[in-house]
């Protein structure tokens, strides 16, 4: 599973109120919400991001509320993956449940600049900065997270056979 796209760089503690402000959450329609993604932080982002682009951020990305709309709008905008130093836990599970891969990588934040081209290989745990001609490593995803990504999210996984497919006899 590889992804290639342009980098959008953000800082630490990007919370879900910034990813998608609650004032818009009177609708669950992600296509209506997507234009407001990250607007208080970077008003250009939602209009300029292209399918396949990647987010690179600092620590604690996605902290705050449990709103699944946050990874939902990123996915709707076509964001292929989020690379951060660390993720808040509810955002972490929500992203994988929706089939949006998250990558914990310390180096990316320090090295990657806005607009640079990145290539991610989930299986090998390698993040290539095509623009700078260098690469960084990250810990490959746990097996269950990989299964969620391969299935296209938890709903798809359940539809395809429930927990047993991923959990065997435990389910």
């Amino acid at each position: 599973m590889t992804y290639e796209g342009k980098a959008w760089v953000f800082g630490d503690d990007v919370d879900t109120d910034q990813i998608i402000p609650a004032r818009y959450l009177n609708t669950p329609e992600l296509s209506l919400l997507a234009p407001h993604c990250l607007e208080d932080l970077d008003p250009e982002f939602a209009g300029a991001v292209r399918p396949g682009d990647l987010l690179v951020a600092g620590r604690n990305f996605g902290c705050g509320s449990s709103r699944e709309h946050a990874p939902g709008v990123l996915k709707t905008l076509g964001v292929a993956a989020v690379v951060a130093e660390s993720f808040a836990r509810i955002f972490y599970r929500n992203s994988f449940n929706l089939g949006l891969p998250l990558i914990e990588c310390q180096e990316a934040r320090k090295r990657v600049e806005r607009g640079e081209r990145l290539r991610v290989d989930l299986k090998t745990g390698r993040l290539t900065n095509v623009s700078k001609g260098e690469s960084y490593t990250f810990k490959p995803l746990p097996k269950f997270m990989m299964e969620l990504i391969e299935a296209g999210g938890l709903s798809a996984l359940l539809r395809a056979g429930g927990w047993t497919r991923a959990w065997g006899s435990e389910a």
Partner: protein
Amino acid sequence: MKKAASRAMTMAEKILARHARRKELEPGELILAEVDLTMANDITAPLAIRAFREAGGKRVLRPERISLVMDHFTPNKDIPSAEQVRESREFAREQDIRLYFETDGIAHALLPEKALVGPGQLVLGADSHTCTYGALGAFASGVGSTDIAAAWITGMAWLRVPGSIKLQYKGKPAPWVTAKDMILNTIADLGVEGANYMALEFHGEALERISMEARFTMANMVIEAGAKAGIFHVDRITLDYLQGDGPGPWEIISADPDALYSDVREYDTSRMSPVVAVPHSPANVRPVEELHKVEIQQVVIGSCTNGRMEDLRVAARVLAGRKVASHTRLLVIPATRSTYAQALREGLVQVFLEAGAVVCPPSCGPCLGGHLGILAKGERCVSTTNRNFLGRMGHPESEIYLASPAVAAASAVAGKIAHPREILS
């Protein structure tokens, strides 16, 4: 041959082990666990309903284990939010879900009040402040809408077993130091991600003296340090609160004395002072005294953090016979209908109105910038809520200062951030 003793476990590990039908488990393991109760609200239920259909769901497995609490934008502020509530209401009817609540109050005050949550349970809610129920000795955690849909269909959820941090509170809290001040001080110490992926376990003599309401305030905010759950051990105060109520039977779980913790932190509550979390992070905590020049335009007393009787009583004590400063608005939002009714019986609503406050219907309201008190550009608000993130209560250039009900009420009278001592003297 000597049988190996089973591994000593923390409260979080024990509760999760029971729900995963395991004798023991270790931090970091991924488990599939049976969920006792789920909750979704008017913002997260519509997404869960979509995920339910997408996953091929036809009927929920156990409707009696599902609660739907419409609390964020209710009473509905506009047509789209009314549609979200209608969709949720119709789903409840279709699936025979009886635990559907609308305008009854904020979930995290309402479900304990209705005795729907209790010790030893695994409760998951599509709302990050679901951790509140940990005050009752439950493992309660915020998850997403798809997790909730999966639990509706299968009764189960995937979880990573968290490590635990033990928090020890000692001493007699200093004057005007409330549960809110204790938890804000704790978040300042841990940092906003200091407990990410971890469970916090609350201990210590200082907590033996505080009410269930105060414990709800503390458990409510563990997510602001990133925690997955915040669990109080069950004592006489918990049992008195639960007495004669609810579906039980609850299972009282205690940590093993030799359980392993990732970290142990000690706090001396006699040396704490009333504090305020300044923009834009709940960990940006400062003593009230340092902020006495900060002028404010709005004060909010309410929310799942501080909208219970004890909170309203202390606010009324500060406000009795006084007036809210000119050019300052005070919003009081009882967390549930029964809290509102009790406040009315005790004469507190009268005190608030005479002071110049507006008393709003139970709702999350302004806490997340939904409705009932949105801030304009440059406005500042002292709020008893739990988050002061950029733009959360309105304009991106507005500011939220988090404080206890006592400090909030004092600030409303002063028109600037104030210590209750200054107002009462």
